[in-house]
Each structure stands twice: as C-alpha cells, then as structure tokens.
C-alpha cells in the first residue's frame, strides 16, 4: 500500500474504523485534545507553516498582520473579482477562487510578496545590497509569470506612501521579533527613492512574513490566505444586492490599444 508522507499531521484511528481519527496531532500537538480552547488562530497558522509554536511576539505580529491584510477593500482587484462572482450569484468557492486568481499577481498580489521576500533574503538589512538589487533590471525568463514591472513591494501608481501603509508599518515594526520591519521603518524614505515608488502594503507584508521566519513560498501562500476574509465578505454582500447597482462601466471600442502597452 502506498502512503502519504508528512511531518505535519499525525492521526490515530478510532477503534473499529480506520477511516476516522480519534486523535489528530499537528507537529506533535494534540489539536482537539489540547490546543482547542487554548490556542489562537494565529498559533495554529504559525504551527502549520513552521512546525513551531509561536512566541508571544511572533503570534502578536501574525495577528496584527492578519488584521492589516484581512480586507483589501472593494477597490482592490482581488476583491473586485470576488464581487463579480457575488453579483451574479456564483458559488462561494468560485468567488474565493476569483479572489485568489486575481490576487496572485505581481501587482499587489501574492507573487509580488514572494519576490519582495526574495529581496529580503538577498539583501537583509543592508542598504548597499538593496541599492544594487533595486537598480537591477528583472531578467526576462521563460515563465508562467510576467516579468516584474516595478520594484516588488512598492506601488507604481502611488504619489506618496499611503497612511494605512505607514500605520501598518509602524505598528508591525513595534511588535516584530525580527529586524527587517524596524529597519524598513527607518529606511523607508531611502528605499522608496531607490525603488522610484512609495512603499505599498505587500512590501510591509513581505517584511513581516520574513520577520516571522517564513520562506518566500510560505509567505506567498499565507498572504493569499490572509486576504480572503474581505473578499468573502464583499462577495456575500453583493449577493444580496441588485446587479443594477454594480458598475458595468462604459464601452469605448478602439481600433487598437497597443500604444498603451507597458
């Protein structure tokens, strides 16, 4: 019999039924017998991703990050996509699928967080390395992903650092167990000059996820997950209202839009 190998989850079968578990352990901790009622959602998330119980500071940082990311708001492309599902009465999973697909990209999405976390791995808290890194042109390689068009973690359309970005950075930097968030908070103006754009929330999230000790792959996944609550709530709200109250926008049929290529 072939088996699934995992270091995360261990189950002991109920007597008389090998298809039901009586004990389930996550990285060794009894989930239903000990964690339930004592552990927080952030404890469970951190445990699942890292295999370790978080320190108070790690759990606090993850809690605050989760609140900052929970709702990107209806102007965000991923929430907009989820609302497109809600307005037509699409299944809940389709609404979240839409939020995940659109929120996965390099412009404000999880791939941007992945790339920004790679930058943290390469540059740490060394301004010289950041200077060199942000001066590099991203290489065009054969990939399912487009080439990055702006420095990851920064907002190509912003004119200044948005207040919620500064507020999030200040709060997370104050509670972080790591050194990246405080350093980012200090060096933000210099990094923004190097990037040519103001810092954006994915950039703060990337530093926070790196301070939590996560890899870029783990950070990308967690960022996708943590932004879903708002998409879900807005999709549900649109299910309750008439599609006539949802923007359909005007159509201007053009011969060619190639001139607008980025």
């Amino acid at each position: 019999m072939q088996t699934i190998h995992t270091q995360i989850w261990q189950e002991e079968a109920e007597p008389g039924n090998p298809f039901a578990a009586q004990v389930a352990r996550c990285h060794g901790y009894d989930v239903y017998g000990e964690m339930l009622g004592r552990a927080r959602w952030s404890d469970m998330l951190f445990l699942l991703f890292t295999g370790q119980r978080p320190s108070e500071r790690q759990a606090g940082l993850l809690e605050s990050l989760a609140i900052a990311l929970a709702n990107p708001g209806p102007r965000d492309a991923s929430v907009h996509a989820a609302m497109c599902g809600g307005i037509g009465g699409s299944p809940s999973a389709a609404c979240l699928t839409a939020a995940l697909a659109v929120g996965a990209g390099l412009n404000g999405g999880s791939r941007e967080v992945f790339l920004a976390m790679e930058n943290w791995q390469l540059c740490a808290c060394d301004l010289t390395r950041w200077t060199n890194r942000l001066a590099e042109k991203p290489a065009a390689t054969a990939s399912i992903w487009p080439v990055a068009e702006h420095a990851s973690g920064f907002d190509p359309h912003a004119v200044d650092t948005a207040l919620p970005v500064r507020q999030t950075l200040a709060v997370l930097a104050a509670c972080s167990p790591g050194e990246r968030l405080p350093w980012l908070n200090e060096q933000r103006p210099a990094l923004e000059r190097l990037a040519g754009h103001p810092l954006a929330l994915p950039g703060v999230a990337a530093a926070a996820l790196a301070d939590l000790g996560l890899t870029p792959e783990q950070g990308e996944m967690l960022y996708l997950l943590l932004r879903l609550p708002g998409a879900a709530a807005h999709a549900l709200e649109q299910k309750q209202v008439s599609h006539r109250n949802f923007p359909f926008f005007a159509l201007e049929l053009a011969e060619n839009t190639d001139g607008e290529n980025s």
Partner: protein
Amino acid sequence: MNGPEYLSQKAGKLQTAMGGFFPGSHVVFRGQTLHTDLKDMDWMALYLFGICGRHFTAAQLQLMNALWTYTSYPDARIWNNRIAALSGSARSTGNLGLAAALAVSEAHIYGRGNEVQAITFFIATQQRLAAGDSLADCLHDEMNTHRRIAGYGRPLVNADERLGPIMAKAAELGLDQGPHIRLAFAIERFLLDSGRNLRMNYGAVVSAFGADLGLSPEEFYLFMIPSFLAGMPPCFLEARHAVEGSLFPLRCTDIAYEGPAPRKW
C-alpha cells in the same frame, strides 16, 4: 453500501470504466484507445464522447459548436470575463485568470446555474404536457419552486442578440424544430401574453437545444462549461499588456458607503 468495510475495498486503487493511461504504451478513453481508435476525432466530439459516452452526428456537433461560438464575448466588463481581465491587469497568470473566470461562470443569473434550471424545467414540462398537464400549471409550479422561470428575462437588457443567429444556424442544420425548442418559444409567448415582459434569453435556447440533443441536465451542464471560454483570452491579454493595475481603477469616491457612521474601537 457504506462504512469502513466498503471504504477498505476501495482503498489503494482506482476502479474505473472511464479509462486510464498506461505509461509508455497507450491510453484508454471510455473503452477505446485514444491514439488509435480516436486519433482523428474532433476535440468537440471527443469532449462530448467523454461526457455522454456516445457519438453525435455532424449536424449536431455543428450546432453544439455554434452554441459556444455565439456566446463568446471578448468584453472585459462582463462579470466572468472581468475576472480574466483583472488577472491580466494584476499580473497574475493566464491559467489562473481563465480558470477562475470559468469557475464564476456557474452563476445563478447567467451561465450554468441558469441553464441547469432551464433544461431541467424544459424536460419536466415536456413530460407533464405529454401527460395532460397545462403549461400554466407547469409555470406556476416552477415559479413556486424557484421564484423565477430560468432562461426568461436577462440581467442587463430584456432582449438577446444571440437568438436570431442561433435559430438561423439551427434551421440551416435542420435542428430547429425539436420539441423542447418549440416549448421554449411557447413559454415565451405565454409569458408575454399574460403580461409578463420576460423575453427568452440565450440560456433558455441553449438549454432547450441541449434537451433536444438528448443531453441530460448533468451532461448538458458539463458540455456547457467551456462555452464562454473563447471570449476570455482576449480580455486577459489586453489587460495583461496594458499598464499594470490600470483596468477599472476605482477612486475612493467610487465606493458609496452605506454602513454605520465612524465609531471608536
């Protein structure tokens, strides 16, 4: 049959009559070999063979092809297409964008959710009418069950530009006089005559054709899944090659907040 004993019999193997692949050798597709028996099969015919396990005539396949073609709209404002386009604008991948756009396409007011109700209603109504029930009773019961007649009325406008072309195509193929498509028009007439301005939409037409082609609601549902797909890549591509984040940008003032006034946490 259920329980641990039954699950134990099923564990560790795939028991299937649908097919399978034998690495380095051959592939079985519903009892036939893919690279020999089915090697010249048109993709649409293969797709339907996979769903129904039977073959359709050339005219039937042409009609089914047209059912998809005539609803392939490269308009990024349409809700499912908008997801594909937003994926391009947000620099996600094409596969993610199109898959999510297809996932959303089983909506209640358009797409699969609408069609499944419509074909189920047409099949049941045809049977009830043959047994002597009245159309008025059938419509009354459907309204009571679903609070709508799926396939009648349209979200954005109460007219459907696809109807004329698809009926012309069906007539050209000699497939426009099936009992369910005639029933679909009879229902529209009945609704209009009873003062309800609910014109038939494309969902009703495709569902009626689906029933006339002998598809069950489940077969028809699966057949229609790619029906909007051809309109989606253009939406993705144009947004993907425009300035990132520039599709449908919304100002803060574009959000009409209607919730509680500001309060302290």
